[in-house]
């Protein structure tokens, strides 16, 4: 189908078309890229909320509860949930829907599962593309759930407007190890499963770390004890999200984030193009007999060989 037709049907809010366009950009096909190039200007910038945290802390269950609130509040809500691909087989089990029963109760909710496909930052390399399609569709709010992360998978910070870091009462000691990493990217911190022992102590500990890290002028991130399973304090979380959204818009923080995001996106695309062109040159160098030529020297040689024409060719092949 022609991309003009796809766009037309997307504007008519056709779900089947939305899903198909997302597949095109998820696979980074030429049609998908052409679609984004042409219709980027038609997007409505939605508020993007990232949900991240270690595996098994209850991110999907929390998203399920947020769906219920936000579906009633906004015209259209989208969820993007990323699960890891196996580095060995390339396959993936995308199981976030298992805990998202509320998806099926609302017609104004669109949910998509995505495999990380070798990307290491907790998202997939196509995530930004997919979010752009959802914005062209005209969704109001997007929840982005990352792969269960450890310490340094921080891509979600660059791609969303607000980040919720989810931990559990037992996170205590490991928070120490996350100090440089996910503890630095949260705008809101959640201690989920707080019906269990130690929730209070853990949230106090998080607060003390945040106080040390937060500079005077910055907003101290709220720390909330939640039990998603029992629907405890979910309304409080929703309230904090709305408060911060308002503050971020008023202070121009969102605008700044979006500018940085666009820069990064351009850098990523360029890097991708360069790497492809380098790979091509590497094949030539691989055949060289001289074992003692240093990696730096090879790099300089390759760099001199890359010309704009070859980059352009690679782009068209994509």
């Amino acid at each position: 189908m022609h991309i003009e037709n796809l766009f037309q049907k997307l504007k008519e809010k056709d779900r089947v078309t939305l899903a198909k366009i997302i597949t095109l950009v998820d696979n980074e096909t030429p049609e998908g890229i052409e679609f984004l190039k042409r219709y980027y200007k038609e997007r409505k910038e939605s508020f993007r909320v990232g949900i991240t945290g270690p595996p098994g802390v209850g991110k999907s269950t929390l998203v399920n509860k947020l769906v219920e609130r936000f579906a009633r509040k906004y015209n259209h809500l989208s969820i993007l949930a990323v699960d890891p691909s196996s580095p060995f087989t390339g396959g993936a089990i995308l199981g976030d829907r298992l805990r998202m029963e509320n998806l099926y109760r609302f017609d104004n909710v669109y949910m998509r599962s995505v495999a990380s496909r070798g990307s290491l930052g907790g998202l997939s390399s196509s995530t930004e593309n997919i979010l752009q399609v959802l914005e062209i569709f005209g969704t109001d709010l997007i929840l982005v759930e990352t792969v269960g992360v450890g310490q340094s998978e921080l891509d979600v910070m660059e791609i969303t407007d607000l980040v919720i870091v989810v931990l559990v009462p037992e996170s205590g000691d490991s928070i120490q190890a996350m100090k440089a990493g996910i503890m630095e990217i949260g705008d809101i911190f959640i201690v989920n499963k707080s019906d269990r022992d130690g929730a209070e102590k853990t949230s106090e500990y998080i607060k003390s770390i945040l106080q040390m890290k937060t500079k005077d002028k910055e907003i101290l991130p709220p720390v909330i004890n939640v039990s998603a399973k029992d629907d405890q304090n979910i309304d409080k979380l929703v309230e904090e999200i709305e408060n911060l959204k308002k503050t971020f818009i008023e202070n121009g923080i969102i605008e700044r984030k979006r500018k940085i995001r666009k820069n990064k996106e351009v850098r990523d695309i360029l890097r991708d193009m360069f790497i492809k062109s380098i790979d091509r040159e590497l094949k030539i160098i691989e055949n060289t007999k001289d074992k003692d030529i240093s990696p730096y020297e090879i790099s300089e040689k390759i760099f001199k060989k890359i010309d704009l024409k070859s980059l352009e060719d690679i782009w068209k092949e994509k």
Partner: protein
Amino acid sequence: MERKIKVLVAKPGLDGHDRGAKVIASALSDAGMEVIYTGLHQTPEKIVKTAIDEDVDAVGLSILSGAHMTIFPKVLKLLKENKRDDILLFGGGIIPKEDMEELEKMGVGKLFGPGSQTKEVIEYLKDWFEKNRK
């Protein structure tokens, strides 16, 4: 980039025996496919909504409750109504041979009975994908 085969594995109906569905889901994932697993008690409506939103290539249903003559045709009908009958519907479970033949006549893909090997399912899907989606 090589396009991945995307499959929805769902367990409709009221019985709670999801071992088979889980084995298939992980076998397909091990074969390099992206598998959406939705768990127990899925209605045909939910299954089709998920298939459409996730834009999957195939939907595999595991049915052990005896409700196959109701559920398969219903899913097929809903896919058609949404103009997505290009999605392959296949499945497995305890399904008598006559019923299998009847379902396949209606347009359901291959149905795998007890004793089937996971590699048969993988080969079937890869073959279908090669013929229909490339």
